[in-house]
């Protein structure tokens, strides 16, 4: 690491242990950073599809996915732009439930998360299985608003939040890694906030 910055002490000396390195607590703010126009996707038109290397390509409508067993995430989220939000709750369905219906083939190693806007982001399959990922439609007990990805977004809270694709439309299972939107634009392929995997090469 290079030298220190002259005169810089920093303000928040009592670090909340839930904050990964380089992150700060956004408290009541929930910043919004997507790069496309915020889409208005009526729930009647919203669908979610698991495709690619699966035994069954499965598509759920809004009513169908909400009829699946519910699953809740209670915890923290971390954005690569350095804000974190602590102690949130999200309600939806576990990605495990969705994959169990589609039955990934043994060759599948990675997924591409797809969005109704065309946004994409890549993840190792192991990062969306085993109770680590959800498709969610409520945040802190309220329906997700369009600026936060409503009607539903992916939630992969142990990775930086660009992996949690807003307006999610599906997962494509692949037998290799392939870069998504931000990853092609210089961001890290995995994005573990505890290792500060912000950009390619970190």
């Amino acid at each position, binding site marked *: *690491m290079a030298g220190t910055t002259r005169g810089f002490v920093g303000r928040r000396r009592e670090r909340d242990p839930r904050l990964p390195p380089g992150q700060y607590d956004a408290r009541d703010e929930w910043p919004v950073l997507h790069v496309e126009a915020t889409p208005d996707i009526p729930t009647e038109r919203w669908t979610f599809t698991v495709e690619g290397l699966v035994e069954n390509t499965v598509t759920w409508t809004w009513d169908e996915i909400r009829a699946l067993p519910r699953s809740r995430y209670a915890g923290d989220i971390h954005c690569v732009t350095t804000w974190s939000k602590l102690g949130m709750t999200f309600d939806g369905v576990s990605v495990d439930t969705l994959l169990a219906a589609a039955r990934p083939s043994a060759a599948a190693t990675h997924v591409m998360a797809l969005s109704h806007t065309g946004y994409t982001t890549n993840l190792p399959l192991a990062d969306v299985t085993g109770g680590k990922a959800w498709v969610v439609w409520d945040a802190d007990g309220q329906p997700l608003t369009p*600026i936060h990805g409503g009607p539903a977004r992916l939630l992969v809270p142990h990775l930086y939040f660009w992996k949690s694709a807003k307006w999610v439309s599906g997962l494509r299972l692949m037998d290799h890694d392939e870069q998504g939107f931000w990853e092609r634009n210089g961001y890290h392929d995995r994005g573990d906030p505890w290792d500060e995997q912000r950009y390619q090469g970190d």
Partner: protein
Amino acid sequence: MTLTPGGTTHRRTLRWQTARVVAVRDETPHARTFRLALPEPRPHLPGQYYVLRLTAEDGYTASRDYSVASAPDGTGEIELTVERLDDGEVSEFLHEVVEPGDELEVRGPIGGFFAWDGRSPALLVGGGSGVVPLMAMLRHARRLGRPDLVRLVVSVRSPEGLYYADELPGPETVVVHTRQAPPDAGRTAGRLAVADVAPLVRGGETAFVCGSTGFADAATAVLVEAGVPVENIRVERFGPSG
């Protein structure tokens, strides 16, 4: 709707480098520009940003993203304009402490989607500090001798809030005042409206919108109403990140 990536595939490492502050100047009472000399200059596209990192004696760090305000000009120097935010851990330090001769760690340039190629027509719409990356585009167009390629609309609350006030005005720019307009503004104070934007739409251009979330969504709606296809609109939203 489509979302086409703007950048090329990245596999390279973005290394931190220690830049030297060569000049500091005020843009408004709340915004200050820092000119940095880079030991390892990399050409940037107008619209890209750098990460700036402060490190305390005990290893504590705080970093923020700042858009480049200057055009790629081959000098090996970049300008970052920083708005001083209330309780902003980084922006307050930059405003109060940093002076020419200081060293600051940065890495970049980053971002390929909110970046102008310098060749195709662009309609730039900024709110307040959101003008910074758009200024890099305007400066680039003027340096290239192609100011006709860009049209810039910037929305400010009052004349005092306009960044780059000595340089920005020109035939390709429009300033919209939302709260207090100068007597010669030719427009009463009020929010950005379709009438402000519609005369600037040529068809086929890419629109770059930058500002707060509220401004970005309002400006996007105005652009769509003025006839810009939503898939041609690229947005950079400023979060409150100090």
